[in-house]
């Protein structure tokens, strides 16, 4: 191997690692606040990318109907409570869960004058996000809020069940074949013999911006602080008047946004399938675990490590790539486990 190849592999590892890093941040966030190991994180990647691809192909994405369906479900669950709270509450609920999906459906079917197919890319991306991201809090409401206090294992198994259902829906919505979307930027730069594409800069740049944004969000903003408080001490946060339900929904909103955005970012450089999410999410999960499910910077570093490991092992022995990546993860885990000696967790 010469330096040229090493650099190319390194570049590839960093681009993939950046996506894993984003997902690992989302996983850390979700776990810290809700104790859910969010296996379906990857599904948002696929949903985001494929929803955008559907819009660009002039089709109505199936996620639209999921948005409406979950809206109806959430309304049905929350309506009695909202009714007792007063008509404003009820109106808010209906606006969020029923009117909003209908507006989205209207937009997709050309209510804004032009079908999304003919919109500029940026607006298409925003519409795709607007359809996919609200699924996060909706799913939290339906699947996790009723068992928010359950042990981690149960939350994990519910997450797995949700993952199965979402992958099944993905196949139904988008079919078995994959899709790609046009690049945000067709530019390419020559740096020391390396070709760097505009899209890969987008991926790495957007990841970096998001990581910093999360850092600021948690350090500075009131919501961020509330989330952090919930992460550190759930009952304490509740005593302080911070609603765990709100924290949970907010977290899932962020996680869904990060997932969908990751999907939209990589869809131009690779093909996305209805079931792409699982393996991508798993690799983000590896990063998250290396970060001990608490540390954002270490999780991001761990995710980059996974990306690089993957890139180099696919060069040396592609058939054994997964064997190599996952076997090498074990010593890292052992090392992390031994160095981050923490107080015994009790359930």
């Amino acid at each position, binding site marked *: 191997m010469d330096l040229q190849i090493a650099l190319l*592999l390194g570049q590839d590892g960093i681009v993939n690692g950046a996506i894993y890093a984003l997902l690992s941040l989302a996983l850390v966030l979700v776990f810290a606040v809700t104790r859910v190991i969010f296996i379906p994180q990857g599904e948002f990647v696929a949903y985001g990318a494929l929803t955008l691809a559907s819009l660009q192909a002039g089709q109505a994405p199936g996620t639209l109907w999921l948005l409406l369906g979950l809206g109806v479900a959430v309304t049905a669950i929350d309506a009695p409570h909202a009714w007792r709270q007063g008509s404003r509450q009820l109106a808010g609920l209906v606006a969020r869960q029923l009117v909003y999906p209908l507006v989205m459906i209207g937009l997709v079917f050309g209510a804004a004058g032009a079908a999304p197919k003919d919109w500029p890319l940026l607006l298409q991306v925003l519409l795709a996000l607007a359809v996919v991201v609200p699924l996060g809090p909706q799913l939290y409401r339906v699947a996790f809020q009723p068992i928010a206090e359950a042990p981690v294992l149960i939350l994990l198994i519910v997450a797995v069940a949700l993952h199965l259902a979402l992958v*099944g829906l993905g196949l139904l919505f988008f079919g078995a074949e*994959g899709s790609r979307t046009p690049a945000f930027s067709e530019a390419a730069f020559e740096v020391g013999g390396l070709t760097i594409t505009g899209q890969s800069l987008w991926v790495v740049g957007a990841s970096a911006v998001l990581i910093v944004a999360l850092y600021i969000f948690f350090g500075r903003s009131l919501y961020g602080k509330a989330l952090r408080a919930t992460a550190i001490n759930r009952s304490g946060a509740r005593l302080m008047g911070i609603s765990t339900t709100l924290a949970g929904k907010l977290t899932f909103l962020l996680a869904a946004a990060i997932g969908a955005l990751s999907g939209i970012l*990589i869809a131009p450089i690779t093909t996305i399938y209805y079931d792409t999410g699982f393996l991508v999410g798993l690799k983000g999960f590896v990063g998250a675990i290396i970060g001990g499910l608490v540390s954002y910077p270490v999780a991001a570093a761990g995710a980059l490590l996974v990306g690089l490991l993957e890139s*180099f092992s696919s*060069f*040396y022995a*592609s058939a054994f790539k997964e064997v190599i990546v996952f076997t090498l993860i074990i010593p890292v885990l052992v090392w992390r486990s031994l160095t981050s000696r923490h107080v015994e967790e009790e359930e």
Partner: protein
Amino acid sequence: MNLKLKSLLAVAITAAFAAPVLADINVGVVVSATGPAASLGIPEKNTFALMPTTIGGEKVNFLILDDASDTTTAVKNTRKLLTEDKVDVIVGSTITPNSLAMIDIAAEAETPMISMAASSRIVDTANPKVKWVFKTPQNDIQMSTAIVEHMTSAGVKTVAFIGFADAYGEGWFNEFSKIAEARKLQIVANERYNRADTSVTGQVLKMMAAKPDAVLIAGSGTPAALPQKALKEKGYKGAFYQTHGVANKDFLRVCGKDCEGTFLPAGPVLIAAQLPADNPIKKVALDYVGKYEAAHGKGSTSTFGAHAWDAGLLLANAVPVALKKGKPGSKEFKLALRDALEGLKNITVSHGIVNMSAQDHLGFDQRARVMVKVENGDWKLIQ
């Protein structure tokens, strides 16, 4: 209370198996409509809905079960079809491992089986159980030969191989490497990737370092586009070969301009409209394409669905013969159906012309494959 629980459980179990259809000819179908092989299994599944509902005046029921691309489920479903639904013939499964696992079960139940998977191992008559097993897709070896012939005649001396890290890629490499060796074609790289991988940069760099004259990509459906796009992006200038696994419109959609000029072997159904008018396959293939596109939209056909269609055609020809020897549902009928399948001669199907024999349970000859080139975003017959 306990008895009540038990009886509840019994009711639940009984309810789990709705009464089987006991009329007429029952065809049990196992396809991989979900899981990794879904892009192959779905068009197959759709095809069964288009098949005629009677053969030789008898009603035909297709009982379709999904095996989720998993061998355990494939075997379980096969057992269910055989023991619960008492099917007369099994069609399936979509992928090689599942088909291999089903052979024992079908042979044990003395029921003919028509596989829709590629590997020649499925109909390797060295295994006595294969007496009961037939298949409709061309063997990998047939397709490999076509590629190797095309390569050598185009002056290709060295080739790099990249395939799925599953039975498909593995089967292709085994067959392709055998023929390539015999024809003095040098394989300079042998790489694998996963269907859902987001990057193949490592493999691509290694292949390019070996400086091959041509690249063969053994994948199915849209995932086969990834290595090709990556190679183009990294500036590879040699010839591209794909396998017949990519032969659907989605592949062209995803691969786009990067796939211009790619060669691949395929069943004639892929370019049915371009076949000469005197080719008997043309009519049969166009008939299928017409029916499928009428139901699922223009450009929706895939050659995989056609494998299912061909299984239907084999049955349409064999069942009337077998009906003379026994009633559907009987042991005699199943044996007669097997014999009739083995005795099929000169049957035109959408992928070729079938001549079965005791040694050949596939029955295809050279007419079952054509070389195709991707031109202007569509398939173009070149042979």
